[in-house]
């Protein structure tokens, strides 16, 4: 009896299996048929979307190339050694941007140390020392918000705080500090990201050796984070060098014949000079060529700075 039962069971199983097999086969055929159509459609959509994205890129490239073409063609014949080494003048043929370049370099000399020291210290405090309390979170959110405040507002702050209150006027120091304020939030946020990216197990390893927090930061965290910090810092500093609005608010003279010699001198910078020359093209058409030549100088400076940032980033990716 029991053996009979078994046989029956086995047969039943077999039947079941066969049934499900034929079912499967039907399903498979069906699904293969449907997939064929779907795959065709997917490939088509893929091709179309690729073209849409390419044309978006093309649009940006087109605008950029028109801009570059106009600027370079206008600057030809004007951008020469004389232009780079002479002082400003109201006569277009005599004018040069030596003093303007010195002004921009002076700004960098203020912006770079101030943003690096203040920005990185703030990021270290927020990321490593500050707890996770509500107040701390509020500070962090607000710093991110500051990064999106329009630059002209920072110009007003700089005018009130550095220009009027500390009586720095429209000196290189006042301009540099204003631009530092402008890019500080960006440097803080990007440095925070760089510090966050340092794996926790490295910190743990250092703490477990009896290292204090500061030792751990100095010897383990910063060496790993520095490429990221520098990349962010260079990109923000190059933004500061190209800023115009805050400096206009600060009251930079439209035509400064003196070349600045120290940080307390009045100054003018590349973007400002471009702005003033462009304003006056109605009266003196050649100013447009001077502006174009200055734009080329500014673009090359920014291009070099961004390249340095990219080189640092690539090197750091290989290292770790």
């Amino acid at each position, binding site marked *: 009896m029991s053996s009979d039962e078994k046989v029956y069971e086995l047969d039943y199983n077999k039947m079941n299996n066969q049934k499900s097999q034929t079912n499967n086969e039907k399903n498979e055929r069906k699904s293969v048929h449907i997939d064929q159509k779907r795959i065709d459609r997917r490939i088509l959509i893929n091709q179309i979307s690729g073209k849409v994205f390419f044309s978006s890129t093309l649009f940006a490239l087109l605008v950029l190339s028109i801009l570059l073409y106009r600027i370079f063609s206008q600057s030809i014949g004007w951008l020469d050694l004389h232009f780079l080494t002479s002082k400003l003048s109201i006569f277009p043929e005599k004018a040069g941007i030596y003093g303007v370049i010195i002004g921009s370099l002076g700004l960098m000399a203020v912006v770079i140390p101030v943003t690096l020291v203040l920005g990185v210290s703030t990021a270290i405090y927020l990321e490593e020392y500050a707890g996770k309390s509500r107040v701390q979170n509020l500070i962090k959110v607000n710093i991110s918000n500051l990064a999106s405040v329009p630059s002209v507002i920072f110009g007003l702050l700089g005018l009130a705080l550095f220009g009027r209150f500390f009586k720095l006027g429209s000196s290189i120091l006042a301009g540099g500090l204003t631009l530092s304020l402008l890019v500080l939030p960006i440097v803080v946020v990007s440095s925070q990201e760089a510090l966050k990216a340092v794996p926790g197990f490295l910190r743990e*390893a*250092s703490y*477990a*050796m*009896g*290292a204090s927090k500061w030792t751990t930061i100095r*010897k*383990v965290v910063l060496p790993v984070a520095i490429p990221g910090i520098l990349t962010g810092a260079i990109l923000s500093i190059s933004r500061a060098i190209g800023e115009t609005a805050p400096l206009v608010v600060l009251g930079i003279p439209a035509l400064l014949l003196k070349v600045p010699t120290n940080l307390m001198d009045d100054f003018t910078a590349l973007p400002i000079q471009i702005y003033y020359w462009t304003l006056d093209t109605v009266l003196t058409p050649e100013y447009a060529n001077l502006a174009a030549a200055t734009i080329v100088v500014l673009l090359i400076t920014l291009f070099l700075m961004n390249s340095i940032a990219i080189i640092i980033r690539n090197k750091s990716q290989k290292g770790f």
Partner: protein
Amino acid sequence: MTNYENKIVYDVKGLNLWYGNDQALKDINIKINKNEVTAIIGPSGCGKSTFIKTLNRMIENIPGVRTTGEIMYHGINIFDKTMRVEELRTRVGMVFQKPNPFPKSIYENVLYGPKIHGVKDKQMLQEILETSLKSAALWDEVKDRLHDNAYGLSGGQQQRLCIARALAVQPDVILMDEPTSALDPIATAKIEELIDSLKSDYSISIVTHSMQQAGRISDKTAFFLMGELVEFGNTEMIFSNPRDKRTEDYITGRFG
């Protein structure tokens, strides 16, 4: 003042620990002896890693951790205000689950501890380097490439480098949190051999998932379950004749 010749290295009395509102350790009482290997076993989430990280107060790096009770280390409560955590961790080294060398050279990795604790003499550093790497059974493999990046080593070599790095500060106790769980059997065998040879100079506490490993290398075994210390005693006793039913169930593979 501190007598490091004590037979008892750690005397844990009534230790409770909470992560926020969740109690992870419940009334732990245990004595860890000098020059012995103490294995800590138990299923995942039983609190064994938490316990070992409490012994050098690494657990305090996790926000929201609260403890009560005492952990006497050579007669001094490690939670005492006078106990500086940097000093404790210099005496109590730690090796982690995943090998975590610094992205520096092998040389810099081993000498990280001595350097931050102010050893400057070049010859002395060289000596520490050599003895630490030799004790960690790594010297022969790396002596020709001490200035290469530690990330070029294999996983097992990296873990032995981490042990060498812990040894370089000349600790008294070495805590190991599943040091072989990320390694292959050959590398594991090497680390186990190493632990056995380190026993004469150091007291070692090791968390392990593998009961065979606990059986092979330890003198004492502690079995944790749901934050409680269920049973603690000689390894042979625990594995051959456990007193508690739960221990027996665990080591015979009925759960966990």
